């Protein structure tokens, strides 16, 4: 059985950064991913990464913007860690090869982004995530002797020992179908969010909440799951993301009357208010009949006000996206967009070193909730989050590994159980529903009831429906009976992961009887610090999901009314 | 129509039958050729590889000379590689006024200047787009009935599509098929028809180069083609001149005649194989000559 000091599940930015950090600390490291690392969804992050690297900037300002953006639900100690370590982390990336855009002096250029009080976003055109992910993968190739790679291995469950400590994973080699147990002193979950529980979503098809659900099933608490970010600018039909960088470069949002409606809700920051504010404003325009497009379900994003040459250089990717996925030349005409599911602020509860309450289990990146994003994440803070907490998890796990022996665990039993589970999925009779049907219904359900605006009735409807879908998923059938690249059976397992994520999201949303950040309850339209300035944790107990609360850490910024 | 005519180097060197047959065919199509005999080689991509500005300047000089030809409707070439190399330079020259001005400063020594927007077409494009397939059809004196012709385009005239203006309205990557058809021949499709002949790496990796030529020729043999036709003399070198070596490399007899485009057109317009220099190929176009005799015999 392969054994490693640190085993990382997921090879996006958080996972790769964790692997490199752990290896540098001298631990034996392996990184496992269900897809090739460069396919990880970090690749789609477009706009940039925030860091107070300008001489005129100060990380405290970055931290305050982040706290305010979070609608004061973010933990300020964690935010301080992230923002104060940001400049060094970004410089490190530059040193290992990220091709950050430069200014005339040859220094890194910075662009404006939503919710930020100054230009603080470093970028590589609008492929920042891709450039960073590929550069980290270059480093993984460079350090192939110290970081073992399990590419295209799908994790089916976490191994825990008798004391409840995490001791490894069970995984399936996607290419051959072979199931294997992996022993590890530490497991770092870095396998992203759960966007596929929504339809449409900006997230890739691989973003199915695997890590969140596996941790939840292993007993870890999930925090802030109700906080689901809708990005203000997604293509109407496909949900494909148009980077916030567009507005950062000066693009306008217009309603059917041609009005820059952001004047009403964010007279100062206008289009560059935080994402929850902008998405809500858009949804109001649409709901009140001022939307554009054939059924009035969209808003115009007008990039034509940005100098064309600048657009062609700094927003190359969305020029292509507009052309290829919407048939629009964004340099010549406005493009129709609307809010779409993009990111989950919640996730597996961790401390600033990525530790979950389960010993030996860490989480970093979108899978985790530290919480640095609270009720709403600022654009260009997610890449930062992945790197800072990926690195810290890697370092901490490596240090922990140095002091302990390989945990003893009866992997055989769990392995057998997971093999049996997969066999049973393959053997299901074709008398229920297809996996794909259930997935579609789940996505549409969440997008209807757990979106920008929510209320008790809708959320209860969603909860009931999820209960039914959970039942149906137990019997959902598939076509593929093979072993080589049986993506069908993996899809069935992923469906289970997504349902867990959806369920905890709805539970949190029902619980939180106020409006804060991304959670807007039409039946509780005000923020209520007195009762709800706290995190909602959901843990899987013997009788199902259990709700509890934990305090928000406040260091230097007291809650205040949020205005942009 | 009158065109500023760029014959290229190889048509006046190792494939003189190309230049010769073009001269014979032009009057039959009512094309007046004003040869750009002062212009230099396009660089075939190699000079651009060495120094981009040099290639751009040398070709800008050719373009400027073409623009001086009074009454010429456009520039015409008879070489896929020339077309590709020139289009690449022209793309840069046309895209950026400042760069064009910079290049023109060098040309000024000779009193020349290139103005954006030259039209430069390979004979193949000119045939289809200017003369037109209908007209061509009407000019045919000896339809290529039952002659099985495999088109071989050459990379430089089919890729990159955007630079070469290939789109729905201008399916230039289909023109050779269309011309063969218009001339009454049977188009033979085979795997290698738009692949590389291997010529550009003949001195760098001879085996790989000739393996390419050999494979495509073999594909054409397997598809039962009587001959190939190409708008590129460099492809002709690898497919015809080097065919004996390619045969050795792929370990099979090929014996596949390769015609230049003007030769095929000339044949259909009634010219004799010998007038078109078909006796000067390394691989004797026996099948084609036999076919033409049989047609003449039948007609007589």
């Amino acid at each position, binding site marked *: 059985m392969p054994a490693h000091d640190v085993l990382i599940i997921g090879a996006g930015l958080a996972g790769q950064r964790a692997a490199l950090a752990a290896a540098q600390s001298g631990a034996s490291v392996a990184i496992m991913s269900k897809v090739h690392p460069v396919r990880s969804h970090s690749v789609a992050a477009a706009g940039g990464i925030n860091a107070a690297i300008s001489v005129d900037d100060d990380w405290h300002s970055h931290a305050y913007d982040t706290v305010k953006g979070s609608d004061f639900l973010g933990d300020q100690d964690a935010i301080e860690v992230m923002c104060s370590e940001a400049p060094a982390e970004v410089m490190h990336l530059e040193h290992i*090869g990220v091709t950050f855009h430069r200014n005339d002096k040859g220094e890194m250029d910075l662009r404006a982004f939503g919710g930020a009080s100054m230009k603080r976003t470093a970028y590589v055109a609008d492929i920042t995530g891709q450039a960073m992910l590929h550069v980290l993968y270059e480093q993984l190739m460079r350090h192939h002797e110290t970081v073992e790679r399990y590419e295209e291995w799908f994790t089916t469950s976490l191994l825990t020992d008798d004391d409840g400590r995490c001791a490894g994973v069970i995984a399936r080699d996607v290419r051959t179908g072979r199931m294997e147990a992996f022993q590890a002193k530490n497991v770092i979950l870095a396998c992203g969010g759960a966007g596929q529980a929504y339809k449409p979503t900006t997230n890739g098809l691989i973003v199915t909440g695997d890590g969140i659900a596996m941790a939840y099933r292993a007993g870890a608490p999930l925090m802030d799951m109700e906080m689901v970010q809708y990005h203000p600018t997604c293509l109407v039909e496909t949900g494909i993301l148009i980077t916030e960088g567009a507005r950062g470069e000066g693009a306008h949002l217009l309603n059917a009357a041609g009005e820059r409606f952001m004047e009403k809700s964010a007279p100062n920051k206008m289009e560059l208010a935080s994402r929850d504010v902008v998405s809500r404003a858009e949804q109001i325009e649409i709901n009140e009949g001022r939307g554009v497009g054939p059924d009035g379900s969209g808003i115009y994003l007008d990039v034509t006000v940005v100098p064309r040459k600048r657009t062609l250089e700094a927003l190359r990717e969305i020029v292509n996206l507009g052309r*290829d996925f919407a048939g*629009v030349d964004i340099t010549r005409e406005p493009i*129709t967009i609307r809010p779409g599911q993009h990111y989950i602020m919640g996730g597996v509860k961790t401390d600033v070193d990525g530790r979950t309450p389960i010993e030996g289990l860490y989480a970093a990146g979108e899978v985790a909730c530290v919480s640095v994003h609270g009720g709403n994440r600022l654009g260009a803070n997610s890449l930062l989050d992945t790197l800072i907490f990926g690195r810290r998890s890697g370092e901490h796990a490596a240090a922990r590994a140095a002091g302990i022996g390989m945990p003893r665990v009866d992997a055989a039993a769990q392995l057998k159980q997971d093999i049996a589970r997969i066999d049973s999925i393959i053997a299901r009779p074709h008398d229920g529903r297809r996996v794909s049907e259930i997935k579609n219904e789940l996505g549409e359900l969440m997008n209807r009831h757990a979106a920008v605006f929510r209320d008790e009735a809708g959320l209860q409807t969603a909860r009931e429906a999820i209960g039914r879908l959970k039942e149906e998923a137990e019997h959902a059938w598939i076509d593929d009976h*093979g072993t080589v690249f049986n993506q069908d059976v993996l899809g069935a397992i992923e469906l289970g992961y997504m349902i867990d994520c959806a369920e905890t999201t709805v539970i949190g949303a029902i619980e939180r009887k106020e409006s804060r950040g991304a959670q807007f309850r039409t039946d509780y339209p005000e923020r209520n610090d007195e009762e709800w300035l706290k995190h909602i944790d959901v843990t899987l107990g013997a009788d199902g999901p259990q709700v509890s609360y934990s305090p928000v850490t406040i260091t230097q910024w007291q809650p205040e009314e949020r205005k942009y | 129509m009158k065109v500023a005519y760029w014959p290229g180097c190889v048509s006046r060197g190792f494939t003189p*039958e190309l230049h010769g047959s073009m001269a014979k065919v032009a009057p039959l199509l009512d094309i007046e050729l004003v040869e750009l005999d002062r212009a230099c080689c396009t660089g075939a991509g190699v000079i651009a590889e060495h120094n981009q500005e040099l290639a*751009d300047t040398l070709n800008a000089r050719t373009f400027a000379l073409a623009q001086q030809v009074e009454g010429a409707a456009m520039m015409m070439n008879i070489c896929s590689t020339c077309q590709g190399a020139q289009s690449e330079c022209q793309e840069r020259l046309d895209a*950026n006024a400042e*760069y064009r*001005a910079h290049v023109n400063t060098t040309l000024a020594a000779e009193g020349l200047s290139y103005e954006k927007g030259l039209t430069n077409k390979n004979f193949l494009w000119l045939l289809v787009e200017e003369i037109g397939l209908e007209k061509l059809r009407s000019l045919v004196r000896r339809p290529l009935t039952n002659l099985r012709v495999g088109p071989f385009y050459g990379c430089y005239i089919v890729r990159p599509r955007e630079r070469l203006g290939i789109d729905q309205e201008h399916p230039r990557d289909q023109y050779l098929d269309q011309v063969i058809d218009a001339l009454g021949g049977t188009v033979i499709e085979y795997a290698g028809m738009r692949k590389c002949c291997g010529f550009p790496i003949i001195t760098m990796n001879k085996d790989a180069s000739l393996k390419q030529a050999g494979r495509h020729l073999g594909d054409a043999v397997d598809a039962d083609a009587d001959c190939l036709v190409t708008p590129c003399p460099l492809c002709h070198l690898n497919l015809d001149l080097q065919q004996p070596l390619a045969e050795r490399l792929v370990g099979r007899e090929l014996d596949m005649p390769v015609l230049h485009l003007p030769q095929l057109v000339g044949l259909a317009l009634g010219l004799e194989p010998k007038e078109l220099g078909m006796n000067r190929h390394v691989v004797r176009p026996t099948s084609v000559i036999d076919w033409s005799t049989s047609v003449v015999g039948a007609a007589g």
Partner: protein
Amino acid sequence: MAETHLPPEKFTVRLRRYDPESGDAPYWDEHTIELAPHRSVLEAVLQARDRFDGSIGIRCSCRQAICGSCGVRVNGEPALACHTHLDAAKRSARDGVIEIEPMGNMPVLKDLIVDMDDVHWKKIRRVTPWLLAKQPVPEREYLVPAESMVDVTQTMACIQCGACVSDCLAMEVDPLFIGPAALAKAYRFVGDPRDDQQFERLNDLAQDPHGMFDCTHCFKCVDACPKDVNPMGQIMRLRRIATSDHHIVDQNNGERHEAAFTSLIRDNGLLWEAELLPRSYGGNSWFGKFHPAAGKELLSSLPAIVKALVRRKVTPAGALKPHRIPKADLRSVQAIFEKVESRDRRYELNLYIAGEDEEPPPPEVPVAAGIVAPIADEPAAPQAASTPTPDEGGPGDGGTPTSPEGSASQ
């Protein structure tokens, strides 16, 4: 607006299926799906998978041409499935049925899934694909020219989808060829002024018998690439820097061929084919000395040469005498050579950086009604004019004067 909710139409897709466990040969499988015509081939495959057959194998994730998973062949041409519209695919289909196959040049694992590790990634690893940064590492960022970062971002934008590898015509006959994706990756470091190993990298790629001089100029990769990486263009730049800046002489006659070709044009204005061969093989001329290694190569070419002479394709007199352009013109051509080649630094217009000149916008631009206020003073135009060429001032933005040293500083 071009954008719309077009009604769905029926499309038929023909998928190349292969089940390695069945022992059966690959076969075709047809499905009819319903989608709006501007939706993608990937969505068609996924609809077929969701509705009719969950066992269809294809790698995919982002659906927006950034993760690089869904490289396939559509109607015989390499493409990203998510980046190919159904209406366009139908137009290019032979019989109206959209044919989707796995990529070429790589072993098929199942259905549309190929083994990229065995070919693509192996080649990527071959080119030392990480920055070997200049030392000492600065405290803050390396200070580098803005355009140099835009330049290498073109190759950084490669999403490793393998479309260019799939149909590389040189790789088709020489599987050991390093290939377009890996060579583009190599340029990403060669062109990066922060990298310390430009010469070593280029020398390595030049001395490999299947290295950068093996590219056959077929432009397949240029058309295959969904991200405008222009792999072949990058290969040409590798060659240019290797030969012109570092004077690297490779084993494959690449440098000699380039030098021979260029000098023949300089001397005659036109190509003298008969002289190209011996000069490329390392001799000065038929009449001069051969490079020892050249003899064998030349000998092996003799059958073709003899046959050409016999067929009077080439006459000895014709072959042995260069054709030249008129004297006055030759002098002008040589003056161009002299002027351009004597510049301190080569001047290159990179359209990826410079873009095309702004054309006046089409007459009826459907600008949304209302406020279209110009944005004040930002964003600043980032591209400063590049360093002028010494003699007369080069043109402005987009030019990348290249020098062997690069220009990183701390």
